[in-house]
Structure formats: structure tokens, C-alpha cells
């Protein structure tokens, strides 16, 4: 277990270093940030002075080490437009994105488990295939598109819910419904696929032969085995969830990280974009580390191999 933990931790460190290096290299490809910060009529002397004060005239290696050192102290440079710490601005917006993603995940996952168990217990093939068809159809619709269609129906036509902003609990309904249905579709398909495989296995047949009720077999015997691989997928899927949420924030004008990053691209405020992506990558790596550890605790085969 110790060896497993250490090897996973080492991988995290390498990944974070690589992400930071990638962000640094890309920043050098954006062209000269000084030209963007200064007005058009600035003289060459002004430009040189600004370059010097920002340390852009030093050797690349020195700049790189400086950047990495700063990153470990939580300093990813200042926003060009707002002059404040880029990481600070990004962290400030993070909760708004996480609350959206987390609520959607919890609701979607719970609903998927309930639907899969109900469909399996009922034994109805028609119910199963209908759910499967709905899940596939939902997965074919990109989140932003589903969000707009919900707005069209529930805000524009029916006038029931607010279309944009984050003002009341009602404004959570449409964005959460968008991402939650996406999550339901994913986990429903995964759990059902696992049920399909285990239905004819020995341990299920034995339980049935002992006279265990159908519902109990599904909940106590089949479900725990089905959930094990789902944990790994959930960790990997977090990336898709975050990506979808980032784009969805543009639909609902949600004051989250995604809108800040996209605004950063439009404003050519690279430090904001950089800080946002580094933060999300670090979060993503941390969550996947937790998932790996959880998996190793739950399944001895992983930590012993």
C-alpha cells in the first residue's frame, strides 16, 4: 500500500510540473504581452522599460525557474486587465463552478443508480431498452445545446424558470438539469452494462437458488460489483463534466470559472487563462489520486499487482 501511494504521488508531481511547463511554454508563444499592455503610441523606450520591469528581458531559463518558483508560492502572475493576482481571481470564481458541477454529479449519479436498480429488479426488457435508448440519445446532445433547448421550452415558451444568471435557487434548475441528465445517461449505461454481464454469473444464480428476493440480489449482490469500475470512470469523467460546465456557463451567463477563462481569451488576458487551466488540472489530478486510493482500498487486486 505504501509503495502504491508513493508511486501515485510521484506521478502527481510529474504531472503538475508538466502542466506548469506547458503553461509557461504556451505563454511564450502568445507573442509579446508588453505590446498588448501598452497603448499604441508607446515608444520603443517605453516597451523596453516595461519588458525590464516585468523581467521579460532575462534569459529564458531564469524566467522559467522564476515562474515555477512563483507557482509553488501560489503566484501565477497578475491579470493584465485587472492588475490583481490571476490565481486569486480564479479561486474567487471556483466555488460557483464547483457547486454547479457537484450538484449535477450527485443528482445524476443517484438517479442513475435508482433507475438501473429499478429497471433490473422489474425484469422488464422493454423498460431496460427504453432507458438505454434515452441515455444514448441524451449523450448525443452537447451540454450547451441541451441547455439552450431547456431555456427555449421552460423560460421562453412556458415562462417558468429564469433563463440566465445566478440569483435564486430557481436559477440552478436549468443548468443542473442539463449536466445531471448528461451524468445520468453515462452512469446508467455503465451500471446497466455491468448488470448485463453479472446476470448469468454463478454468484447471482446461487443467491437466486437460495431464495433471495430479486430486489435484494440486485441491491446487495450485483450493485456493489457494478459500482467498483464506475468509481474510476467517475474520476476520468470529471474532466468532461468540468469542460461541459465551462461551456454551459456561457449559455446561462453563470458567474463561474468558465466564463472568466473565456473572457480572458477574448481580452487577451493570458495570465487569467493560465491560472484557470492550471487550477483545474491540479484539482483534476487531486481528485483522480483520491479515486485511485479509494479503489486500492476497495479492491485488493489493484494495490497488490
Amino acid at each position, binding site marked *: 500500500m505504501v509503495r502504491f501511494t508513493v508511486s501515485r504521488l510521484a506521478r502527481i508531481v510529474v504531472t503538475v510540473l508538466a502542466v506548469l511547463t506547458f503553461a509557461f511554454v*504556451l505563454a511564450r508563444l502568445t507573442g509579446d504581452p508588453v505590446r498588448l499592455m501598452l497603448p499604441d503610441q508607446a515608444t520603443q523606450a517605453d516597451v523596453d522599460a516595461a519588458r525590464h520591469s516585468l523581467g521579460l528581458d532575462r534569459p529564458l531559463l531564469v524566467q522559467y525557474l522564476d515562474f515555477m518558483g512563483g507557482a509553488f508560492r501560489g503566484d501565477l502572475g497578475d491579470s493584465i486587465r485587472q492588475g490583481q493576482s490571476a490565481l486569486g481571481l480564479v479561486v474567487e470564481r471556483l466555488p460557483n463552478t464547483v457547486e454547479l458541477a457537484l450538484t449535477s454529479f450527485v443528482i445524476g449519479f443517484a438517479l442513475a443508480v435508482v433507475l438501473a436498480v429499478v429497471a433490473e429488479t422489474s425484469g422488464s426488457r422493454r423498460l431496460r431498452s427504453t432507458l438505454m435508448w434515452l441515455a444514448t440519445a441524451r449523450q448525443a446532445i452537447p*451540454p450547451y445545446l441541451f441547455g439552450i433547448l431547456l431555456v427555449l421550452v421552460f423560460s421562453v415558451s412556458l415562462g417558468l424558470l429564469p433563463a440566465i444568471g445566478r440569483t435564486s435557487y430557481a436559477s440552478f434548475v436549468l443548468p443542473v438539469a442539463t449536466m445531471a441528465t448528461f451524468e445520468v445517461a453515462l452512469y446508467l449505461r455503465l451500471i446497466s452494462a455491468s448488470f448485463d454481464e453479472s446476470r448469468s454469473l454463478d454468484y447471482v444464480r446461487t443467491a437466486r437458488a437460495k431464495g433471495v428476493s430479486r430486489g435484494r440480489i440486485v441491491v446487495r449482490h450485483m450493485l456493489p460489483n457494478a459500482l467498483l469500475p464506475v468509481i474510476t470512470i467517475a474520476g476520468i469523467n470529471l474532466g468532461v463534466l468540468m*469542460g461541459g460546465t465551462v461551456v454551459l456557463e456561457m449559455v446561462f451567463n453563470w458567474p463561474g470559472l468558465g466564463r472568466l477563462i473565456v473572457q480572458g481569451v*477574448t481580452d487577451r488576458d493570458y495570465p487569467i487563462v493560465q491560472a484557470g487551466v492550471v487550477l*483545474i488540472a491540479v484539482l483534476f489530478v487531486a481528485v483522480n489520486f483520491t479515486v485511485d486510493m479509494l479503489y486500492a482500498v476497495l479492491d485488493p487486486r489493484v494495490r497488490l499487482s
Partner: protein
Amino acid sequence: MTQATTRLRSRTQARSLTAGLVGAAPSLVVATVMLVIVALVVVVVPFLPGSDPYSQDLASAQRAPFTSGSHLLGTDALGRDLLSRLSLATRTSLVVAFGAVLISMVLGLAIGLVAGWRRGRLDAFLMGVADVQLSIPVVLLLIVLVAALGSSTTLLVVMLGLTNWVGYGRVARSIAVSLREREFVTAVTAAGGSGWWVVSRHLLPNVLPQIAILAAFEVGTVITIESSLSFIGLGIQPPTPSLGGLIADGQNYLQTNPALVVLPALMILMVIGGVQFVSQGLSTRRSRR
């Protein structure tokens, strides 16, 4: 006589086509219908008279579908013909998606086969690169790349291609790893076959079918990503119409002319749905065999 035979032949062809369609899964029929509609819009519309996706006519702006004789599906806020914009947007999305899938497929095949064949440090390094890349969500990775490098359509194809190779790489590698231990590979090596010969003549043909199935699924994924980027304004840039861009424009007119959102949305659903159901049908047929 010849006319009669042609008629007869076309009738039997039609019958065998219906029989084939009835025998196929209903989702495959639906998917085929969707893709046929998409193909018609992409191929036929540009040849219709008066279809210019760029010409503006403010006098006839914001026409609803089926209300104007010269614009079948109506016009947008600048009076541009919606049907021809849909046609060009769909074509752009498809070209971008196929180009990107091709790039990722070639890249993934090359990296995966080399890693699986050589193993050792090179393998560990290449798969490490894949892990690092997966630690940034694809959409975000593309947003950073666009922020740093800008977004022309060609650049977009390349960036989409470079960010989606990992899936192909892993599949190609895992098949190569299991194949390199097999007798036929040992035999080729013993007979003096070089590494390049084994990889290109023996591993590649065995990997291709799996990769092709993955690619079919990926077309839908890439179209989703591209249209999301274009929707938030970081993908295909105006004035070139794109499906995501059309929806972003139309979002401002949800109250007055919902067709500006609904029609491109339908188009995206038909493209992604059609591709997904067809590739699903193909892969189940293959696994059944």
C-alpha cells in the same frame, strides 16, 4: 424492353433495400434517414438558385421559416438565407471533424504502435505524456491553445487533431503489446524482418479495424467539441458560418425567431446522432461476427 428491365431491376433493388432496412435495427434506420437529410442539405443546397450564405439583405431580415418565397427556411438578423448558412456550416463542421479525426488517428497509431512494439523507457515516456495530457480537460486544453495561438480554421483542425490522439494511442499500444509476443511476429523477426517491417506489415493491419471503429465514434465527439468552441466564440470565426456559431447568434433572438436556434440545433443532433447510431450498429455487427 430495356425500359422494362430497368424498371424491374430498380423494383427488385428497392425491395431488397426495404428488406435490408426492415431487418436492420430501427435505430440504424433512423440514423440512416438523419444522415441522408444531412447529406442532402450539404450537397444539394449550394446548387439551389439564390443560395448565398453571405449576401445580406436587411430589408428581408428575420423572416420566419416557410414565410418567404426566396428563403425557404427564412433569414437571420442580417437577412442572410438560413438554409444556405446551415448548409455551409454543416459542411465546415464535417470537414473540420474528419480532418481532425484523421490527424489524431495517424498520430495515435504511430505513437501507440511504436510504444507497444519497443516497450521499455520509450513506452513509459509516451504513455506518461498521454497521462499528462489527459489531466487537462480537452475543452480547456483547446481554450488555452486558442488563447495562445489564435484560431484559424486550419489551426483548429490541427489543434483538435493533436488533443484527441490518446484514445487511438492506447488502443493501438495495447493490441501491439499483445501481438508482439505471438508466434507469427517471432517468425517474421527470426526470418530477418526489421522492426519497421513488422510494425507496418503485421501489426498495423491487425490494429486498423479497432481504430476505425473508434474513429467512427470520435467523429461525433469532435463535432461536439468543435461546435462547443464555436458556440463560445473560440472556434470557427465569423464570417464563416458554423453550427455552434449559428446557435450563439440565434440565442439573442430566442423570443422573436426561435428557428435561428432550433434549426442549427436539429442539424447538430442529426449529424451527431446519425454518426453515433451508425457506428454503434457497425461495432455490434462486428462483435456479433
